[in-house]
């Protein structure tokens, strides 16, 4: 087992691993570029990111036949750097979910234990990196979809500041929350990928003109005197005790590198789930109104009126969680309910953003767990939507605040399931985040461990 650096090594790993984990919806014969920072490095792209090669389904039946005529900006940037795009990774349908069980094309299994989920929604991307099928991957993170599967699969996953990376060519879920993120086996590789995809894009008016940092340079920079805040609310009731222990031990070890550990409080953590899901589903219900069966590929609908055509196409094209999202979002935005639900959620979001701003006035970094529990058994949450939502309790506040965060491997439970440490920074302070992640990584060998082929 090792990280593949060429298309050939990637192809060999995909051949042996793919029957066990189903990380990919489609793989390509990628031409191996010889030049560029990434020169031929095999990369997986989550299937809700547009690629000219192959299909882009977002894990949905409604896009089963859709082929994009253009590449997302992040894909263009990777290709320009010489990356070999080897395939499209399995997501939850329209990136809604925390397990890939909501993909219309089957579940991705966790390489560390194939009876368990790889996390989500970028589960295919995470499993492909963890198994050594690819060198790196892109995911998207609306409420934790990069960090959650990264944590469950023992890889590094980065959610940049909102606006740091172009959203042009990402299939929209919650437009005020969505960001593309990078996934790799090491902090430095994930930093390099972000270095390549970051920056303002004329095709995304919400992408920031802020100067792109030196992310690779920030690795191994040292963290002496850096103040790391630990919110007690991140260890509240419901936290798996082994995760709490591993994460506290990891944070404590940062002292050996000169960091100062400070207890802090983020009291609104407990309401982040309702605030996030109301906003995300409201935005999703409007974003998904474009799927009408006339555009984006073929749906076989019997002859009917135009209205019946829309209703029927959407009824058979969307899966259960997406239907739930559309219903919940439409409800939260509908006359008579919008003030109590959507607008109230958006106001509490402002309070959550202020809470993070206040915390970052006294600390450089916030650290805690990524997930309340390790990889769960396939099927255990799929029919209980609220239980699935709660898997994101500690990742969604970060998207609401718009700040950057990442998951770094910090050990394994007694059952051998991976656990991630979440490192959060203030707006556009990705460099500090990478310095801390790299300092932690340097003290351990978690990233040299590979799952055994089942």
């Amino acid at each position, binding site marked *: 087992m090792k990280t593949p650096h060429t298309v050939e090594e990637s192809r060999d790993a995909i051949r042996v691993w793919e029957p066990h984990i189903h990380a990919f919806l489609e793989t390509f014969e990628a031409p191996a570029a010889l030049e560029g920072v990434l020169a031929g490095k095999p990369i997986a792209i989550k299937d809700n990111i547009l690629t000219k090669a192959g299909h882009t389904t977002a894990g949905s039946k409604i896009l089963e036949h859709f082929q994009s005529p253009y590449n997302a900006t992040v894909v263009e940037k990777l290709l320009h750097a010489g990356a070999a795009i080897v395939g499209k990774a399995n997501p939850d349908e329209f990136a809604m979910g925390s397990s890939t069980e909501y993909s219309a094309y089957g579940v991705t299994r966790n390489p560390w234990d194939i009876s368990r989920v790889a996390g989500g929604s970028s589960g295919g991307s995470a499993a492909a990196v963890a198994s050594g099928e690819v060198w790196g991957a892109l995911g998207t993170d609306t409420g934790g979809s990069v960090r959650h599967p990264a944590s469950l699969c023992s890889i590094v996953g980065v959610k940049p500041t*909102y606006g740091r990376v172009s959203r042009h060519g990402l299939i929209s879920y919650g437009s005020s929350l969505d960001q593309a993120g990078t996934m790799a086996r090491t902090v430095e590789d994930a930093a390099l990928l972000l270095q390549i995809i970051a920056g303002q894009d004329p095709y995304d008016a*919400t992408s920031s003109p802020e100067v792109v940092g030196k992310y690779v340079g920030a690795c191994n920079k040292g963290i002496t005197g850096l103040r790391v805040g630990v919110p007690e609310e991140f260890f509240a009731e419901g936290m798996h005790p082994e995760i709490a222990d591993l994460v506290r031990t990891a944070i404590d070890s940062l002292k050996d590198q000169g960091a100062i550990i400070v207890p802090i409080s983020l009291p609104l953590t*407990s309401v982040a789930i309702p605030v996030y899901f*109301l906003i995300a589903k409201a935005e999703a219900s409007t974003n998904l109104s474009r799927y009408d069966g006339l555009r984006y590929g073929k749906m076989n609908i019997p002859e009917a009126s135009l209205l019946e*055509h829309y209703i*029927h196409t959407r009824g058979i094209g969307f899966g259960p969680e997406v239907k739930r999202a559309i*219903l919940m979002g*439409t*409800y939260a935005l509908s006359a008579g309910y919008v003030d109590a639900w959507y607008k109230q959620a958006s106001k509490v979001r402002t*309070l959550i953003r202020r809470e993070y701003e206040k915390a970052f006035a006294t600390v450089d970094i916030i650290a805690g767990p990524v997930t309340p529990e390790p990889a769960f058994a396939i099927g255990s949450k799929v029919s209980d939507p609220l239980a699935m939502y709660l898997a994101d309790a500690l990742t969604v506040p970060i998207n609401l605040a718009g700040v950057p965060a990442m998951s770094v491997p910090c050990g394994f439970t007694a059952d051998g399931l991976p656990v991630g440490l979440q490192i959060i920074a203030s707006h556009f302070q990705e460099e500090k985040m990478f310095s801390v992640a790299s300092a932690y990584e340097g003290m351990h060998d978690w990233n040299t461990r590979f799952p055994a082929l089942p």
Partner: protein
Amino acid sequence: MDAITPKEVRKISALARLALTDDEVSQATRDLSGILEHFSAIGSIDTANVSPTDDASGLSNISREDIAHPNTLCSSQDILDRVPNVRQDYAEVPGVFKESSVS
């Protein structure tokens, strides 16, 4: 906040142009009621004089030159190659303006 009813689910699904089976209506009624009961916790948070986060980026009046960039252009052929039904270099879709027919 009152629990959501099947009638409300049908009303919302009509607004959202979404066909639901009777079973799906029952399931959605149960799911949404349970979820919204949990979510009603936000109702007790004091948000008087708090503005909503209507803008996540803090940017305004962002514009770009309206010029085509060769590396991002797709030809009409690029697009037609990806259309399921093509007739005489046009994408063929069900009729929109014909009364009660989309074939």
